């Protein structure tokens, strides 16, 4: 069984995936040309889980949990630092997209090669990744057409948990005190997601599989 706090973390972790999963078009009717280019930048978001919310996302005002995420966009890298975990998406010269999940508590980086993502049935849209995979289909999206990023939006997770994203700040060059993704994990151990089947005992595998499940990539994780 997972604790309430774990479920809450799960809800937060799932947001970016859920956002990405539904952002099949540029939000708010803004065309790509109108929205401008996806210039390299770093942006800080406040991510708040609101208590007392319902599926309509119209009630609750009390913040029960709040995090700060850092979104980092470069030509061939899009990354999000979510505090305890990071996602680092990279595109190579041949257009293949791979993912690294950084699990700070386990001091582990999990590598998902392009082939492994395909084997899991994951289709990645790079242009949507570059825009935070934000919030089409959700209420009250405010789009920053200069940055090509959502400035504010809310999402309902699992029909009951309301999560609000607020863009706090963006910079072309991130200040040194921002926790940019990938900067803390140089000495971490690496796992290949293809090895999960042989490593069910590993705590990092259990965490990564749980995140995969929350993302809808796997139907269930090992729970020993």
């Amino acid at each position, binding site marked *: 069984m997972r604790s309430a706090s774990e479920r809450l973390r799960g809800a937060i972790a799932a947001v970016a995936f859920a956002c990405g999963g539904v952002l099949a078009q540029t939000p708010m009717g803004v065309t790509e040309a109108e929205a401008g280019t996806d210039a390299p930048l770093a942006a800080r978001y406040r991510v708040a889980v609101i208590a007392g919310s319902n599926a309509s996302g119209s009630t609750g005002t009390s913040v029960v949990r709040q995090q700060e995420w850092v979104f980092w966009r470069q030509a061939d890298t899009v990354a999000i630092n979510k505090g305890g975990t990071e996602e680092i998406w990279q595109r190579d010269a041949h257009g293949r997209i791979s993912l690294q999940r950084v699990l700070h508590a386990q001091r582990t980086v999990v590598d998902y090669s392009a*082939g492994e993502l395909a084997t899991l*049935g*994951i289709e990645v849209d790079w242009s949507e990744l570059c825009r935070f995979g934000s919030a089409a289909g959700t209420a009250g999206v405010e789009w920053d057409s200069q940055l090509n990023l959502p400035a504010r939006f809310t999402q309902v997770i699992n029909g009951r948990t309301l999560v609000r994203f607020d863009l706090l700040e963006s910079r072309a060059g991130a200040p040194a005190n921002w926790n940019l993704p990938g900067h803390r994990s140089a*000495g971490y151990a690496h796992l290949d997601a293809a090895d999960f089947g042989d490593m069910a005992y590993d705590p990092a595998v259990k965490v990564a599989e749980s995140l995969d499940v929350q993302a*809808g990539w796997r*139907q269930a994780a090992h729970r020993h």
Partner: protein
Amino acid sequence: MFSRRRPSFANRPIAACSAMAVVCCSVWWAAPLQAAQPVVKGPESVADWDRAGQGFIEAGKRLSPNAARAKNVILFVGDGMGISTVTAARILEGQLAGRPGEENRLSFENMPYVALSKTYSWDQQTSDSAPTMTAMATGHKAREGMLSVDHLTPRGECSASVNRDHALKTILEYAAESGKSTGIVTTARLTHATPAALYAHIAFRDWEADSNLPELSNGEPCRGAEGSVKDIARQLIEVSPAVRLSLKVALGGGRMNFMPASRDGVDGVDDEYPKGKGRRADGRDLIAEWLTTRGAGAAYVWNRQQFEALDTARTTHLLGLFEPSHMQYEADRAKDGAGEPSLSEMTAKSLQLLQKDRKGYFLHVEAGRIDHAHHAGNAKRALIETIEFARAVRYAMDHTDPKDTLIIVTADHSHTFTIAGYPSRGNDILGLVREVPATDGAPLAPSKDANGLPFTTLGYANGPGHRGAGRPDLTRVDTAGLDFLQEAAVPLGSETHGGEDVAIYARGPRAHLVRGSMEQNWIFHVMRDAFGF
């Protein structure tokens, strides 16, 4: 941003027959209804059954055990290639050639001797690859996760001396000490459990690079501590003098375990993926060390162009590391930017190098990614891997002499992969089950479950293919698509190994010793007896 291609929500209508089965539809299922002919027909005549049976008996009568010593031994291992995988791959290979498929034979199915291998380990009913390959490599069943150390080895043992005290000599090491050449080929990392069991002796299969060793193990300092066991990549480079001289070919993936994370303050940058870094915390460049310790004829390649340009006449010791981790799935290999050889191409190159040695050789070839695709619940990739594995075996069969070369083909363990329902002859093995109609002339239609939903022939007992909220309607789903995940009964993030027996196929000297129901570790004894060690 991204999405999971859920078969149940896919919107790709397919024809009643997949592309693979079109031939079958047009040839065997085209009988007009009014003729009341069977809609499904095999290509055989009535006489064919008897003729084939008699042919089998005659071939059996001509068979005589080859009691000679083997000059060469080749051990092929399909990682996770259970018998259901062999069957499904056999059918798929046949269907890809435009035939019904069931009558097809993979290359190794033509070998004269077959046995069943019991794959349990000293402490596992259903085993992982470490003790199973240890059994085949050393003749001893061992513990979960341990490579070529005996079953008295403490779990997590990091002491080099304790690991050494419990080490079990492998068939590769026996071959090296007898002056033969040796080789290892895999599509997984060279440091992965199956290939590593041939040259490494270590209590934990995951200690592939020094950065994988824990700081503490069993309360004792481990990573970087004096007297701690060498990581697996380092063991490949720092093998015994005999193995260093003997190991002429090592091809596979796992480049990062041989590269320094940084050296002299500079990150160890990968040639193929510039953002990739090495995994070695000790700063050593083991690829360079291979070249400096193996003599003037040593070579290293990491892409297809280099591999093809290799001068086998002048090369004495070849190291090929084609990916940072595992090599690409065969189904995805053509998309690899730098290009990499197939398993059959690596097998061919290895034999060209090893056959230069008049004393003979031991070669191990592993199809490492059958297992990974099954773990992902992705049958098509697993079957394509298996077909390529059979191609590699065919090359070896065609380019060796059965009088002096023992070839053994087996698996380390099975998976929970099943072939179920009552699909008709020639039914797309990746498709929905369509039974033989109850009435001749009636059209084929998908079989239905208790809720009226169609289902696929292939499935898993557990794994990521479990659909949470009841069974999906697969009527309009392309179940033969490369990325389709077969349904699984029990929800698990990764599909698991299976515990039933796997097959052993053999030909050549002492191949007749492969017979009946065998303990997996007896495979080692067959190879050693054939070599005469």
